[in-house]
């Protein structure tokens, strides 16, 4: 019946039809994922309230630019020690006896507190020191310090 033809008249969708189609597609997706979408809105709200959303938005827009700048900057020689220290620092944190340090810090704070009660004009003579050794608090402090010195000096 027909000679060979190649011309194609494209099917044209009006803007309204296109909108209608897109809208019904979205509507269907919303219906299928109601829970997730509501939770998503909660998440967005949380981000918005904390101001994080603005930051994230700005960062997303400038992602490549930001990455480029960051990488270029951080690659400079002056940062090399810092970068090389970073992983060491992480390992260091891993090795620290945090519980011990916390105890020590509490004691340090107590000491500082006590120190503030001491008037700048007060003086201490040898006799006062000998007397002070009898004070159990002072004695414990000195004993701890001696122990620390022993540990630190150990090879």
């Amino acid at each position, binding site marked *: 019946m027909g000679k060979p033809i190649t011309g194609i008249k494209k*099917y044209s969708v009006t803007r309204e039809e296109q909108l209608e189609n897109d809208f019904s597609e979205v509507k269907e997706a919303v219906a299928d994922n109601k829970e997730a979408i509501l939770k998503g809105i909660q998440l967005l709200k949380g981000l918005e309230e904390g101001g994080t959303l603005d930051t994230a938005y700005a960062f997303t827009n400038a992602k490549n630019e930001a990455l480029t700048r960051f990488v270029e900057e951080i690659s400079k020689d002056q940062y090399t020690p810092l970068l090389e220290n970073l992983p060491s620092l992480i390992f260091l944190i891993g090795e620290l006896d945090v519980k011990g340090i916390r105890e020590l810090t509490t004691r340090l704070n107590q000491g500082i507190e006590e120190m503030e009660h001491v008037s700048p004009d007060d003086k201490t003579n040898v006799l006062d020191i000998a007397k002070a050794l009898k004070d159990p608090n002072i004695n414990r402090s000195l004993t701890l310090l001696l122990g620390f010195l022993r540990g630190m000096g150990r090879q």
Partner: protein
Amino acid sequence: MIEREHTVVTINGTEYLGESGQNLLELINSTGESVPAICYNESLGPIQTCDTCIVQVNGELIRACGQTIEAGMSVQTQLPHVHKSQKEALDRILEKHELYCTVCDYNNGSCEIHNTMAEFGLEHQSRPFKPTSYDRDDSGSFYRYDPDQCILCGRCVEVCQDVQVNETLTIDWERQEPRVIWDNDVPMDQSSCVNCGQCSTVCPCNAMMETGMEGEAGFLTNQKPGILKSMIELTKKVETGYGPLFAVSDTEAEMRESRINKTKTVCTYCGVGCSFDVWTKDRKVLKVEPHPESPANGISTCVKGKFGWDYVNSEERLQKPLLRRDDHFEEVEWEEALSYVAKRMNEVKAEKGADHLGFISSSKATNEESYLMQKLARQVIGTNNIDNCSRYCQTPATKGLFRTVGHGGDSGSIDDIASAELVITIGSNTAESHPVLASRIKRSQKLFGQQLYVFDLRKHEMAKRANAFFQPKSGTDLVWLSAVTKYILDQGWEDQAFLSDWVNGFGEYRESLEPFTMDYAAKMTGIEVEELKKIAEEVATSESVAVCWAMGVTQHMRGSDTSTAISNLLLITGNYGKPGTGAYPLRGHNNVQGCSDFGSMPNFYPGYEKTTDEKVRKKYEKAWGVDLPQGTGKDNHQMIEAIHDGELSAMYVLGEDTGIVDANINYVTDAFEKLDLFIVQDLFLTKTAEYADVVLPASPSLEKDGTFTNTERRIQRLYKALDPLEGTKPDWVILQEVAKFMDFEWGYTHPSEIMSEAAGLATMFAGVSYERLEGYKSLQWPVQEDGTDEPLLFTEGFPFEDKKARLFPLDFELQYDTDEEYDLHVNNGRLLEHFHEGNMTYKSEGITRKTPNAFIEVSEELARDRGIKEGAEVKLISRAGEATGVVTVTDRVKGKEIFLPLNDNGKSAVNFLTDNRVDKDTNTPAYKEIAVKMKVLKKKGKSPIPPNNHRRGNPVPQISVKVQDKWKREDYQFPGSQVKR
């Protein structure tokens, strides 16, 4: 029962039982002990370049991969000095390969360097990374080479030399800085590389990588080169020690999993049936990754399967149904197109009868779609006028096999071809038409002493490699085959036991051979008597013979008879039913076997059950609830004739560019113009579709589920990798909707249901189910109900009542020849890189860049005679039509033979020249019998073969990577002799 020999080996104090001759590394791997091994790959075997698998054997440090196990061997893999040697080898690798995994596109969980280092627990680089002085080679379209990441493991060389056997890659161990080189050190794009992509498949890291992966695979890899470099530096600074580096990069690799899909599919090009994972990100195809367990191909691919997928996302894909409106098509909604199709088919049927409609299935579509197409024709319309494109190619082979051995398919598997002692190819340009299968033959011949005899008009790659090459006169293969068979009988060299146990019809057949004397054969074929005798002796004395043939046999007026002659010869010499033997008609399309298997034939229901068989018809009538047509329908050829005769008024063509691929296209397209209704279902507005009244936009293989059957009768599943492109539908969905509009509710929700219906009806597929075909599993028909299949046919007889094969008597008369006016013979065939009319492969920019169009091969003698040179333009004129094209002068053809690749749909389309001559038994067009005269339009010009075409390359054959040359280097010391005990 054969007792298998076993060998006891002690590894780290525990005794293990190995197989005699087993590789030590293979045994260690199978025990759960672990040694690092980077260059070793199961599919390639030991290469011995990386030195990482050092172990202690009887007190000596050696490479485990270089050792065959022996009884009583004592092996240590964990002693400190063993460990130290291994570490030394690994350190050497890291001098060559920078680990920046997080920003590397190869960091997808399978990087073998990454994984080996991590498993070994290597924490620090002992020596700094040393880049080479070479630049990256980015010259190719499909993969690139980065010498700074290359560890010189030599896998790429091994695969190129000994698996693909294209022999392009070597490593030059003699230069200061060794590297992989192409040919004699040219850029990859200028080399003999055929872009099979196997080097990038086996590369253990990112040195040889598919370009599709670059900047796509990782989350952080798509950066400008400068930034990428800085990021690599940064990664190294931050990730001191490999522990953290691996932790970060492994996490990133996991993240990639969520957006890169890896889907198993089966290649949609030739009949070899390669299967692989296709990696996709959204609609982008990143790469194709074959698996060692891919049953037909292992790790192998060719350029089309590995890289030829651009057509899937081509801009030219149709995305709306088209309806003819006077002088143009109009895009319409599916609803409108389908109701038009249904209404018009009903009208034609009502006015003129069901047999006025004809259906053509596609060998590109799935088995399930072939089944539905014939169901549509038979159940919904009520006609047996259904056929498929195997009519154009392999129906004569099927015919020849049905006559003699009862099954119309390959007798065995590709493994049988690879293990045959003698392989004969007849009329098959195997290296270009079935490249992955050809590689198996090339490997066996190169490494394992297989003999290869090639019979062809044209001196193609297989001919150049052959142990013996013969050029019989066109169309005379039947004569030499019969004469060789006769000579074998005359000498008493036949397999008498086999003949008496398994073969009928000897007496009559023996008599029919009388005319086929040596002298007659020599006269008809041009092969000398002495040579014919040698061929006979070789066939008769070889332990196992496999014969592969293709269009050079079938597309002749005696295609079926010649195929029969092949089968006769194999029967006489007992070459059926044993491993390494049999008949192999190499199927051209991915599913040309399956399309016929599943009933798209005018005389067969699925599984080759006859339409004329009352019992069969009743079975289908019961299943489909209608009365079915009796007798047989029209084949392709008869349909076209019937249109001219006014006996066929409507045609439905699915995925077939009939207007280009059928012979004598002027005659065919004239027929199209006469149709009342012409429906075409395709991806593109093909030449055929231009004549249509309705064009239905379909989806290609990557966008659907289904099964294909390859040349080995192997049924394999493909999984949907992408959603159908918007506006298109898979063929099975379209067919089901057409049926629905014609009031037949099929109700399939998945192709697996179609398969289970077919398996329930056709005895041949009784045990076929999607569960049994999961992943890389496959079945080779016939498949019994319990799932037993037959990789090798005829081991327990032939499918006839008394289980005996039949010798089939033949005669011969030469009906075609050139004459004084039409003095040149045109041969035609495939090119490696393009497929068929090119609707798919010309969409690939990379392929088209290297092979932009078809060309006419002319011999040096003929060029001299006609005074033409490379680049000349000629017009070929046959009695049916004319075609024009650009000439390349080559020694691949001789004398007055001309070769024209069939991969063109423009003015060079070969089918402008072919006529209506057909095989007398099957109506397959005699495409290979074209006599033409040549008119010179321009004497010389620009060569049609660009400088970067692989045909211009210079391969460098060698065996493996020549690791001995590495060991000879002054700066090389075996890590085992370097460590102190």
